């Protein structure tokens, strides 16, 4: 590329001083071939610079945003967001009613299970817990019968028995496993040995105490 043409390009880039520009244009105007080249180049530059610019389709930005990779979140941030992040619960009436129904069923089930537990523990007490022993005595004529034994310090009042219509007096006594001696006290002053006792032992006063064994 010769000097003249290089200057023409510098002029097109606006890099010449006013004097250099005037000198060049004088030379260009005096040379028809150079003038033609200069005009053509100026026209080409003008064409490119004024060429219509395309309008970007409207969805461009939103599409870029949709395609962006998901932000990388640290493990602890994810854990924190899992526990403390706000959530929006979407619901409808059917789901809500079904949920309430399910909760009622579960609650009722738990209550029943607890009651059953009580029954089981009652039937099979843990080691060391008291058994409830039912003791009965047939005395249809008696007005009052009480159960006295070493478990209530031979009290004639504490173990009052309850009379049933058939003439049988009964009492349920909670007892730890072990061996106990007892007698019935009829009408407050008559001491009677249980005729159905499993065994007997002399009481040292000429009578026999009934013996009861409560096993584990």
């Amino acid at each position, binding site marked *: 590329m010769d000097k003249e043409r290089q200057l023409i390009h510098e002029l097109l880039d606006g890099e010449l001083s006013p004097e250099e520009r005037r000198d060049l244009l004088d030379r260009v105007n005096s040379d028809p071939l150079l003038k033609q080249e200069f005009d*053509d180049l100026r026209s080409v530059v003008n064409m*490119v610079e004024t060429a219509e610019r395309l309008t970007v*389709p409207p969805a*461009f930005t939103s599409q870029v*945003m949709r395609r962006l990779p998901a932000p990388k979140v640290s493990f602890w941030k994810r854990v924190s967001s899992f526990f403390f992040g706000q959530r929006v619960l979407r619901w409808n009436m059917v789901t809500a009613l079904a949920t309430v129904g399910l909760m009622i069923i579960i609650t009722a089930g738990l209550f029943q299970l607890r009651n059953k537990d009580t029954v089981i523990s009652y039937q099979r007490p843990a080691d060391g817990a008291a058994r409830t022993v039912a003791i009965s005595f047939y005395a249809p004529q008696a007005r009052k019968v009480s159960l006295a034994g070493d478990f209530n310090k031979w009290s004639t009042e504490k173990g009052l028995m309850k009379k049933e219509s058939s003439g049988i007096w009964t009492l349920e006594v909670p007892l730890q496993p072990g061996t106990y001696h007892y007698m019935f006290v009829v009408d407050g002053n008559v001491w009677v040995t249980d005729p159905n006792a499993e065994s007997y032992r002399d009481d040292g006063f000429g009578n026999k105490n009934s013996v009861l064994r409560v096993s584990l």
Partner: protein
Amino acid sequence: MQAEEYSLIEQCRNGNSEAYSVLVERYQEMIYNVAYRMLGDRDTAYDISQESFISAYDGLKRFRSDSKFSTWLYSITVNKCRDYLRCRKPDVPLDEVTEILPSKMPDPEDSLHQKQLGQTLQAAIGALPEDYREVIVLKHVEGLDYKEMESILGVSANTLKVRTYRAREMLRKVLLEAGVSNG
């Protein structure tokens, strides 16, 4: 503008991707037009522009705050265009281009004149070798100075000047052969 852009970029780096939409809105027209002039096809230009913005977002951590965001974005787009053109079929040799161009320009009074002139110009730009096309687009479509072009293309300003002069000469020749006369 510069400080505001750095603030937006910082927000993007901190995971606020919504801040990026401001930058996309601002530069989409610029990037889309560069891609179109480089590739000559609207659909391809759209795809390459999209990819350029996504790559830029991915690489925001590497963006150095001593340069302009637009310069960096131009650079990414030019590279995307180069990659695309490399994978595509080879360019048509320059001496065959005039056969593709309209042999005679229509009457300027014709309502289609401007449209056809635009198509002819784009065909002529597309006929330039890739490195010449880059300088014509950045210099005259985008109106950048050689210093900024140096940052975008990684080539010295003096080399880019010479390349631009030759690219203009070549474009003049192609357009003349296509019948686009002075004025």
